[in-house]
């Protein structure tokens, strides 16, 4: 029996196109990327339930479109791009919903502050949580850039492919994000 965890992406994609090995190949791809993608999403949306919904939708979309996937781009990049788009769309929908249900004085509040407080083990005095608060003061795209660079240590070149932005703009964005986070942590 083949050890699917040791098979390269390209071979797994080929196995996906064969009816008999389709599911096993797909399960192997999920296993390979689930944690990275999970954290990529969760760092943006905070709650596990929201993350799980988005993550499952991402993999369902991948299943539906994988046969048409052109292998001139890396599977990993393509997966991250779908994950990022799904996450941003979800955040937009959530924001629209919460703006509709919020009263005027609540409107300006950061929706993430309450999300973070609701998390299990939240402790406002712990630096890890303060860092999350700081990150969630950033605009969504800057937050994405910061997370990809700081946590995933992704090269700017890769980030440019995923976010469809120039490397220069990403560097500037990261630089601004770091400054804002540093200032937040100093002030709080």
């Amino acid at each position: 029996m083949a050890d699917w965890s040791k098979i390269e992406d390209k071979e797994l994609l080929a196995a996906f196109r064969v009816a008999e090995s389709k599911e096993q190949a797909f399960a192997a791809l999920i296993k390979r990327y689930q944690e990275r993608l999970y954290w990529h999403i969760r760092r943006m949306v905070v709650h596990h339930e929201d993350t799980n919904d988005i993550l499952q939708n991402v993999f369902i979309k991948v299943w539906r479109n994988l046969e048409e996937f052109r292998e001139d781009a890396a599977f990993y990049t393509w997966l991250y791009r779908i994950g990022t788009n799904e996450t941003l769309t979800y955040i937009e929908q959530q924001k629209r919903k919460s703006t509709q249900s919020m009263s005027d004085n609540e409107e300006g509040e950061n929706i993430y502050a309450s999300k973070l407080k609701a998390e299990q083990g939240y402790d406002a005095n712990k630096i890890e949580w303060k860092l999350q608060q700081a990150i969630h003061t950033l605009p969504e795209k800057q937050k994405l850039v910061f997370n990809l660079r700081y946590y995933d240590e992704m090269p700017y070149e890769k980030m440019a492919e995923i976010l469809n932005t120039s490397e220069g703009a990403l560097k500037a964005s990261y630089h601004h994000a770091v400054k804002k986070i540093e200032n937040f942590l100093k002030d709080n």
Partner: protein
Amino acid sequence: MKVEGHIKDELIALGGLQLLNASRQMPFAYPENYFDTLDTSCFKTDNQSIDYVFTKQMPFAAVPENYFDQLSLNILEAVKKSNTILENISKTMPYQIPKAYFEQLPAQVLFKIKTTHSEKRNQGAIFRMVQWAASIAVLLMLSFAIKNAPKKATQDTNFSLEDVSAEEIANYVHNNIDEFDTDILLSSMSNSTIKEIDKANNLSSEEIEAYLNDEGWN
């Protein structure tokens, strides 16, 4: 001031031997102490009768002792300090994940993929079944109208299909159900349509109910 060095060599090469012994001192005269006072006089203007000496010395208090010696060290320390805020924070996320979440995820995704596929197929079958049910209803209505039209027409010349209520149609079908030969109805349908109806017949009442609810028919 005699010519020396490479300038002398150059003059010899050029044949300027007389110039070698000449003094290079300028013969022109200039005011006494002119160069001693030149710097201050540059800042004198015509309408400034009082002479003042401009010095570049800053009027501020003296710089602390050893300030510049320690400056580079202080800067490096400050840079270190500002970096350490982020550097000292663990990159481990503080969030919790349900137990065995990642072990179960692939199976969950595959299950969802399969169920959404079969749900879609079932929804398609139900939709086609409802379409056929509607077609059969129209067929029944027409046959009802054709059968009753001449009789009705004698009674009511303004008869139209709109005048027949659903209740009347249902009663008619109930009372004359034997006249609706399923074989005749089926013979007018294509093979693929019959297959669709067979599929639809195998649907559970829950599936039909769910479909009707989704479509807002219930």
